[in-house]
């Protein structure tokens, strides 16, 4: 394997781009902070913090989805991921960074007492409201802070342990016993992350961070919906990085066969997302109970109508029709196009999930959203590039590597 290019070097162009995007983002952030964040108008403040909130949560979750992907494929003893597993690992190194930003934003909202964002922060309103009073055990600042801290800390820590374990396969060839032992230890570490992931992304965290904006409203499907959104965008992100590295001449052992599998994930989880979108919508539409329809009222019939259905078109119809064919999932250009479209679509989805509840009367999508988006994309490119450069691109003594090399769909 001497001829493989296993050491990624960050190209100058990539650095320039990421610094430029971060620069644009910081300017937008600063300008937004002055005009909106410090504004006396509550609406402007809500706009600013809401925008920060959905961006931080979205990017943390899609990076975390990479670690989830590694863990479930480890648990399933999948071989095909081994030739490119350093990419999702590198993306997941962003979890502590984006997690810290999310933590800061959420803590500011809670301790800055932004009850226009989280209505349940207002203790007088909670005391007077039987519904909010009933939810007090879950929706209160103490629980929020503890659970958020635990969540972000354990995502980072358990993910770090999985990455450390992966590095062991760089060192020396393993005997059969050592290999079996290695796989077993990996299974344990991956299982620990997966369990914590299920307790957080799979259930409580989306309820706590985003659904509690509509403090009276609830949907048990909301967390699954958020998970599906973040997982399909996470897979698209992995696909983009694989294609980028292939174009630069790295990842010789990864090819169309692997891309086909990633494409299947993008296709299947787009359908899964739609399934949850529709299930949530139809039950509420059918029952037609005012306290439930309040969530959809301004989204389906109000100012968010356009975004709401646009969202369905780019996240369901486009993946369904474009990614359905086998040849499409094996085509680098089409997969790149679809990956960008899917990530953008789910970013818009997160936008309407958060801002649709915070600014019911008018759509706020504008320069601030795209500025903050630029900041996160820039940070992502910068740190993923660095992380890729800091270790070999292939875990060359992993027992399943050969399975990945001969992988065929």
């Amino acid at each position, binding site marked *: 394997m001497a001829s493989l290019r296993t050491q990624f070097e960050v190209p100058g162009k990539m650095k320039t781009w990421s610094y430029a995007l971060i620069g644009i983002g910081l300017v937008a952030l600063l300008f937004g902070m002055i005009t909106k964040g410090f504004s006396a108008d509550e609406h402007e403040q809500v706009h600013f913090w809401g925008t920060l909130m959905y961006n931080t949560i979205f990017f943390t979750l899609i990076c975390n989805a990479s670690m989830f992907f590694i863990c479930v494929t480890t648990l399933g003893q999948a071989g095909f991921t081994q030739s490119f597993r350093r990419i999702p690992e590198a993306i997941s190194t962003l979890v502590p960074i984006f997690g810290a930003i999310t933590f800061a934003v959420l803590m500011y909202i809670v301790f800055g007492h932004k009850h226009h964002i989280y209505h349940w922060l207002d203790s007088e309103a909670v005391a007077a409201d039987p519904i909010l009073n009933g939810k007090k055990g879950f929706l209160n600042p103490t629980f929020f802070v503890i659970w958020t801290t635990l969540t972000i800390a354990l995502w980072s820590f358990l993910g770090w342990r999985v990455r450390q374990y992966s590095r062991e396969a760089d060192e020396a060839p393993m005997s059969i016993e050592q290999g079996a032992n290695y796989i077993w230890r990996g299974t344990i570490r991956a299982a620990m992350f997966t369990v914590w992931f299920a307790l957080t992304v799979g259930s409580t965290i989306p309820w706590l961070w985003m659904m509690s904006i509509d403090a009276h409203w609830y949907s048990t499907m909301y967390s699954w919906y958020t998970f599906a959104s973040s997982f399909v965008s996470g897979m698209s992100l992995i696909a983009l990085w694989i294609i980028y590295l292939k174009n630069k001449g790295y990842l010789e052992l990864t090819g169309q066969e692997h891309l086909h599998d990633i494409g299947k994930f993008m296709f299947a989880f787009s359908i899964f997302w739609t399934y949850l979108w529709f299930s949530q*919508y139809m039950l509420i539409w059918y029952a037609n109970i005012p306290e439930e329809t309040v969530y959809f009222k301004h989204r389906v019939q109000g100012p968010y109508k356009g975004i709401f259905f646009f969202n369905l078109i780019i996240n369901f119809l486009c993946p369904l029709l474009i990614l359905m064919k086998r040849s499409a999932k094996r085509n680098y250009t089409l997969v790149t196009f679809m990956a960008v479209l899917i990530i953008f679509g789910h970013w818009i989805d997160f936008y309407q999930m958060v801002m649709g509840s915070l600014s019911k009367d008018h759509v706020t999508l504008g320069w601030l959203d795209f500025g903050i988006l630029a900041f996160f994309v820039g940070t992502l490119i910068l740190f993923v590039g660095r992380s890729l450069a800091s270790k070999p691109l292939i875990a060359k003594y992993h027992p399943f590597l050969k399975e990945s090399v001969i992988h065929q769909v």
Partner: protein
Amino acid sequence: MAKKKFVVGCFDDEAVLFPAVKKVRTAGYKIHDVYTPFAVHGLDHAMGLRETSLHTAGFIYGITGTTTALSCISWIFTKDWPLNIGGKPHFALPAWIPIMFELTVLFAAVGMVLTFCYLCQLAPFVKKHHFHPRATDDLFVMVIECTDKTNVDDLRSFLANNGAVETDFQIAEDGWWLGRYDRDEMPFEHKQIVAA
């Protein structure tokens, strides 16, 4: 339905079978089929089979199911027998989507199973010639169709040189016929050799 001449080569290892398939094809022989005890990855590619169009048929069946459901329900609930259900509009699309989905799945699934049976000529009492009984057990059986110009002895030794553990010459029915296995007259002269 016609009787044809076949040369049969049996292999006991995938790793031997693949290069043999490649060599037989480059030598210009026409492979009738390769019978394996289990699905072998990449064999279709090595044999140069074209990609199946079963999925295209599945897509068409699915679309037919969706259209059938939508047109049927919308006609019933808006024209034929409009009912007021929970104050919902007569054209209540969200309520119909599960049914449209189910009919899509039903049409696609049933249609594809039937198409698959048709393509593989599978049906009750339809019988086809078995070239070697151990093809369902542990042997990889490559069947080559002979033309007028084929020298059978050459071909048999060619197969043996490429790793075939057993070769055979058979004159067999190419297509299918109706019959039952329990009272059967084999319609071909050459009785197949049952491996010891």
